[in-house]
């Protein structure tokens, strides 16, 4: 029933006064990332009203700082999900090894160290992307294996010890205009860039089409594997950046760092309304998802709830998101549930 009404409203002439409202309502109920944005804003307002000490500059800055790095990794991961390759389970490992890369090269200067971390991530992503895209291996299994190999090598090289960076990484600890930390700015800029690429560029469209239906893409002559490769490279580079920024906070590289990034990034992607079936959803959704999860965690802490309770909330949130995404994408394609 919903489908029919919605479909008819799109046929109406744009001059009809009822249409813009109907169109907007339709777009919000069918676009899962819009649902998530609305939910996030509502939650934010609720937290401002009901949680004391939430709406303070200090707390909000801490909140966004905690969200920024996971958010960067999540935006990267969302590209893999959109291209229809589920998730990379190597995000944590890539972040962790990137902290080592950054710390070990910090003596050559913060910018070269950061570039090296990003490059490392891109390379690690490229290898996994080659396997998944060109050789058609399963993304989950491939990235689990990649994670093991990465951590194994890094253990050998570091001897399992902390790597103390010899240099000054304070450039990444600045706050712009005295309020916005560099990491938050990077998160914001990358999200906008990913959104623009996804929505307006040829590359973004190819990612969407391959994610929607790889076989149909091939029928019109589009190869899937270069697109998959790109997704893994972009995702890897962003994990590398997240690792570099993480390391710059303490000037140290440690394989224990970033251990929760993998699960948190997946949570953000799923909560952000990116369909695991591929093709639907966008990187902004993943970014919003990261903020939503962080927001929830922050509010729960301020309310005095324990870590365990937070974990349960996170899990429930993921399940709710999966259900909601399924419903929204069914509605969008006009199929009956």
């Amino acid at each position: 029933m919903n489908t029919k009404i919605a479909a008819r409203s799109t046929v109406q002439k744009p001059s009809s006064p009822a249409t813009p409202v109907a169109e907007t309502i339709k777009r919000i109920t069918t676009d899962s990332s819009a649902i998530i944005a609305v939910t996030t804003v509502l939650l934010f307002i609720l937290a401002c009203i009901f949680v004391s000490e939430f709406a303070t500059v200090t707390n909000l800055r801490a909140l966004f700082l905690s969200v920024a790095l996971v958010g960067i990794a999540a935006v990267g991961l969302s590209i893999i999900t959109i291209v229809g390759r589920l998730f990379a389970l190597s995000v944590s490992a890539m972040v962790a090894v990137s902290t080592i890369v950054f710390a070990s090269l910090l003596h050559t200067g913060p910018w070269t160290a950061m570039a090296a971390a990003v490059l490392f991530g891109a390379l690690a992503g490229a290898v996994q992307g080659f396997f998944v895209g060109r050789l058609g291996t399963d993304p989950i299994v491939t990235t689990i294996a990649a994670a093991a190999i990465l951590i194994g090598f890094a253990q050998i090289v570091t001897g399992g010890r902390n790597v103390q960076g010899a240099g000054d990484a304070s450039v990444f600890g600045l706050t712009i205009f005295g309020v916005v930390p560099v990491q938050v700015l990077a998160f914001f800029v990358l999200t906008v860039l990913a959104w623009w690429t996804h929505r307006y560029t040829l590359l973004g469209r190819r990612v969407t089409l391959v994610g929607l239906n790889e076989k149909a893409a091939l029928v019109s002559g589009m190869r899937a594997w270069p697109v998959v490769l790109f997704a893994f490279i972009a995702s890897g580079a962003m994990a590398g950046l997240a690792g570099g920024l993480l390391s710059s906070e303490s000037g140290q590289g440690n394989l224990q760092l970033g251990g929760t990034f993998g699960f948190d990034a997946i949570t953000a992607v799923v909560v952000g309304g990116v369909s695991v079936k591929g093709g639907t959803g966008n990187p902004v959704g993943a970014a919003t998802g990261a903020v939503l999860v962080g927001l929830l965690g922050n509010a729960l802490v301020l309310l005095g709830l324990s870590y365990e309770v937070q974990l349960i909330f996170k899990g429930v949130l993921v399940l709710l998101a999966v259900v909601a995404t399924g419903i929204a994408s069914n509605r969008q394609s006009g199929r009956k549930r």
Partner: protein
Amino acid sequence: MVLSTEVLLSVSRISKSFGGAKALNDVSVDFRAGEVHALLGENGAGKSTLVKVIAGVVTADTGEVTFPGSSGSSDVAMVFQELSVIPELSVRDNMALSMRRTSGLLVRREKLQERMQSALASAGLEDLDLDMPVEALPLAKRQLLEIARGLVADARTLILDEPTATLSDIEISRVHEVVRSLVAGGRSIVYITHRMGEVFRLADRITIMRSGSVVASGPTADFTMDSVVTHMLGEEHTAGEAIHVKVNFAPESRRKLNIRGLASGHRFSDVSFTAQAGEVTALFGQIGSGADDVVRALVGIIPVTAGDIHLNEIQLSALTRPKSQKHGIAYVSADRVLEGVFLSGSVAQNVSSGALAGVSQLGTIRAELETDLARSIASKVAFDPSRIRVPVGSLSGGNQQKIAIGRALATQPDVLVLNEPTRGVDIGARAEIYRALRQLSANNVIVIVYSSDIVELRELADRVITMFRGRPVSSNRTTDVTDSQILTEILHGAKA
């Protein structure tokens, strides 16, 4: 042969509509014990809908299916044309899948084994190792295993849907032997086939359907090969005519596709023909004839192992799908949902998907170019241009197919290859699609189709190449051949 009178399965006054189209119209047939009852008809005549109603997969609008002399619908087993055995599982496991109706929680292993063995024996597979994986069996034995699966469910009526479509002559005779022994044991066999020869060798009774109705039914002795074909096509059958379109290009610029000695593994060989713009070329053959593989090889989906392809005097070699697309060969797949369209994408996104370079500048997609393209393509395929923002998944099958074709047109192809261009498309949309394709060919595009539907052939094609068992039989202008000649060629090969 003695015709028994005990009716095992009775279909009376069944009607069924899908949407507006009547698939079955007041159909009544009795199927008797001890008989092979052939169910004949063209594609779309309603045979498969009828058997689906009998098997309970589809519910009839009116009328009923009864089983005189037995308790319930479990008395019918269906053996599908597409093999439904699971290749990775053993013979035993595949058989067990069909035995879910066994009552009680626990089943004695020996008893199970016994039933399987006896079913296999009845299907002519007594020497089969139960632990063998099904994928190790040759095709004919898999088909017999399908039959055994029907038998193990202990059904007295067995519906066989084209059991021999993909089999060789020796294998066919084996299936026939089994069918004979089954009816001798008092079972009733409903036999659907397109092979005219086996009808007269095997069937005791024939029922012919056309456009959802039974047009003739009676003992085999009452029919001849010619009368069966006449009934299938209809006495009043005036062959649909391809509409004439005026050629819209200079004769010297006419595009030509030359195919010489093309082969692809064991799928087909020795295929040679020239297709040119200004006419629609059709490859016509049954499933398994290799005719559909020819079009898939042309577009680079399956490999070409011998022969060569020249497009406008330029040789095309080592074709892959992306490569053939670069050479200007566009493809419309037979499987609309899996390969044809992006269901969740909008019409505009679907149309532009093959022509992204044309709607973008400096790597950025220009929305207005995309909209323009979608509008212009929509009008070419008779699709409502105001609906280009709608997701394709919400459209009807006919409209989805128009978009699938539009997607190929957007690439501005020199050659458009279509595999079953109107499968599952209603009659109105068909006519529009035929018109669009013929218009295209008049605009200097080479149009090549694979079809298994003779009505389509008549309304769409100018030239027909018939194929039988991987080899071409003949190539004719469609106006120069009769339906019965075409059907004979795809069912039996060249006239001896």
